[in-house]
């Protein structure tokens, strides 16, 4: 249900993106007025982060992690249901704003004092605050649920050091959610007090615009790691199974995840290098931001090391995982560029950032979601997704993605700012923007192909059997025949690849 919610909002958020790219296809375009465009780009960002990626990644986690650890359900099944419904409610409330006088239009990051009633007098931002508060409650509840499940419901013999990496990432990620969302909740409550009861947190008479930025980014930076860690978990599983080998350096991958989680709370000011906080503050956060690149680099290396010496099968999940290595390195390098403060001073708030964030969000998180979809679809539905359609989807989407966003690095270097509804007819701008728009439509076409694939596979896809990929972990163990229960019985666990051990044992008998 999480996945269907995410799909619904993905179509809305993606539609918003197409509208944006159409408006930006040519210079001085008058297709969309600034009022409309500003609502659409705000809703695009807010939807994709809070109501597509969060529910999708958490939804897969609450489905698969109990299976991986041999549990019959989540620790608090009713809380699980509550989390879903309140997330859906939050998203619907956010979109209701279109009918209530106007959607929020101050950007997904909603800076003060633009977010104050004086400057934004439609109710959109109030809906934004309430929708996100509800969604946030859902996310934190799911995180608590996941932690209790993983810590208390593991099958006998599965120590924490033997957790499949997807479960480990889920565990660390849940702590990140619990630590980061309260900062956003506090900021949103303060904002509602400002807008509804005339408090002075962020306004121009006594309030502080920077306070909003600090609180928002104290949430916002860990949030991007919240969105990528589950994807890292998916890749860890996919690389192992489709190379036919155990992960290279389990300890390094698990440990670097904890390092990333801890460091992620200490880098937020890198979103504020251009606000004039002084070079001492800038230096500290530059150092921490550069440092956080290292554990991520370790992981990339470990995944390549997993493939080395193995026997690689190029299934669709594996193709997305390999593409991720390249795309995420591009996104990660542009990110490290921003940790170099003078470069940030030149390029922040330009299309170079838009390029960077889409390379990590799409090339990192969304590709992970696609890999997870193709990998675990047989477990969730009993059928395989069509492999041929999947490969067409992969190539069309990856082509469109790179067309759209690689070009935006150049647009940023050429001085194009972000969050603009139009741009002047500067040499080169129109042709590059046009190509970028064309790529977006390619991605849309690919997504339609994916939707068709899902539909046709549910209706008459190849039946899957319990272990279609010859995998290592317990989610592929034969499921229970009783509804409402995951397993009837389970093997003993002595290593990180319990299913593989079982298969080897039965071969040897």
């Amino acid at each position: 249900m999480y996945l269907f919610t995410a799909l619904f909002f993905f179509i809305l958020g993606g539609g918003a993106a197409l509208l944006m790219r159409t408006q930006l296809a040519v210079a001085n375009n008058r297709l969309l007025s600034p009022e409309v465009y500003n609502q659409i780009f705000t809703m695009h960002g807010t939807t994709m982060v809070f109501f597509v990626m969060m529910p999708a990644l958490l939804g897969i986690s609450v489905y698969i992690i109990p299976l991986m650890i041999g549990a019959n359900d989540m620790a608090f099944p009713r809380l699980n249901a509550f989390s879903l419904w309140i997330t859906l409610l939050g998203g619907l409330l956010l979109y209701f704003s279109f009918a209530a006088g106007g959607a929020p239009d101050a950007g997904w990051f909603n800076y003060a004092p633009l977010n104050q009633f004086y400057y934004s007098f439609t109710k959109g931002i109030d809906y934004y605050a309430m929708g996100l508060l509800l969604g946030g409650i859902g996310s934190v509840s799911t995180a608590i649920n996941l932690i209790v499940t993983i810590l208390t419901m593991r099958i006998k013999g599965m120590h924490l050091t033997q957790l499949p990496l997807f479960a480990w990432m889920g565990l660390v990620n849940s702590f990140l959610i619990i630590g980061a969302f309260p900062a956003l909740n506090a900021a949103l409550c303060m904002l509602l007090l400002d807008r509804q009861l005339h408090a002075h947190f962020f306004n121009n008479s006594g309030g502080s615009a920077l306070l909003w930025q600090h609180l928002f980014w104290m949430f916002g930076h860990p949030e991007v790691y919240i969105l990528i860690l589950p994807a890292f978990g998916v890749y860890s599983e996919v690389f192992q199974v489709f190379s036919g080998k155990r992960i290279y350096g389990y300890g390094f991958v698990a440990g670097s995840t904890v390092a990333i989680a801890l460091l992620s709370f200490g880098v937020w000011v890198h979103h504020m290098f251009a606000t004039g906080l002084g070079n001492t503050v800038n230096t500290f956060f530059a150092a921490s931001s550069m440092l956080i690149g290292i554990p991520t680099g370790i992981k990339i290396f470990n995944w390549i090391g997993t493939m080395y010496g193995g026997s690689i099968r190029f299934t669709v999940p594996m193709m997305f995982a390999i593409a991720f290595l390249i795309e995420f390195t591009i996104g990660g390098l542009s990110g490290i560029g921003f940790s170099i403060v003078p470069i940030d001073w030149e390029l922040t708030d330009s299309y170079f950032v838009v390029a960077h964030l889409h390379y990590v969000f799409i090339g990192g998180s969304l590709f992970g979601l696609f890999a997870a979809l193709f990998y675990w679809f047989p477990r969730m539905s009993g059928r395989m997704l069509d492999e041929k359609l999947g490969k067409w989807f992969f190539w069309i989407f990856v082509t469109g993605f790179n067309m759209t966003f690689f070009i935006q690095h150049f647009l940023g270097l050429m001085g194009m700012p972000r969050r603009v509804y139009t741009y002047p007819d500067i040499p080169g701008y129109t042709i590059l923007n046009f190509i970028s728009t064309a790529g977006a439509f390619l991605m849309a076409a690919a997504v339609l192909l994916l939707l068709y694939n899902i539909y046709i596979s549910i209706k008459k896809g190849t039946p899957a059997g319990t272990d279609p990929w010859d995998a290592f972990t317990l989610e592929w163990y034969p499921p229970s025949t009783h509804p409402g229960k995951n397993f009837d019985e389970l093997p003993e666990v002595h290593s990180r690849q319990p299913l593989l051990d079982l298969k080897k044992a039965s071969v040897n008998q």
Partner: protein
Amino acid sequence: MFVPLVISDRLMHDTISTSIPLQSVLNATTKQAEEINSLTNWFFIAAAFIMLVVLTFTVYVIMRFNADKRRNKEKKELSRKWEIPMIGIPSAMIIVFLVYSIITMGHVLPDNDNSPPDLIVIAHQWWWEARYPDYKVVTANEIHLPAQRNLKIQLQSADVIHDWWVPSFGNKMDMIPGRLNYIHINVKKPGVYYGTCSEFCGRQHAQMRLIIVAEKNEDYLQWLSQQQRDVVMESATLPGAALFIREGCGSCHTIKGTPANGDRAPELTHLASRKTLLTGLVPNDSGELAGFIKAPHFIKPGINMPDFRLPDSTVRKLAGYLSCLK
């Protein structure tokens, strides 16, 4: 009579008619940008190196260990010793870049030493106010500066957060209400440079362009002395000035030397000396000016200037008056 012609003309083709040459971050036109760009260039080289390494390893691995080729072969394990250079080399690179960036930061944006600024720029929704404190000059949107001098610019905001960004000048700096920020520039050559507001500030953020005219010192001083002069009230312009007040324009705009002294909108005392209107969107001629007064929300929809629904004759007279304010 020309007014209706101008308006219908504009409805028929592209309304934004100024042209801006390419403003690239990589084209350093200030000393600060030069310094930042050498750091940027080294970074691109380092990033390309890492990209090449990752790409090479990935392609090598997927080609060599393809399942079709490895059908019956044993699995190999990569030696764990590789972890050491893989952590060590990026760590070393990071330390080098950290030190290099600290040095560059210190040169480009030294910490504030309370010296008086040469120029104060106050950002508004959606225009720029420029004050020259030593000369008591206040102007708007077209900002003149002396080239080849170290300048300290104080950046403020009158409403929401804005950002001063001229791509070829190098770094940008936010303008935050309730806060004073500073930027230092030394423009290498005289010329006209373009920038833009670089922090989302509402409806017309996209069209809030910066126009910087860097001049030789003599030209700069000459411009300043012209800007310092109040408007001389001659009999020819008197009716225009009176009309300006009567229609309420003076409650938002200032024209020094007349009773018009509003401070919520761009200063207009020397409007005719500027090359463009509306933060660089259209050339400054009386046709464009008339078109704007007639329909303020056509080119820049959503700005704070109301549509006064003035009759064509009033618009014509106002445009004529303002075109004389050199």
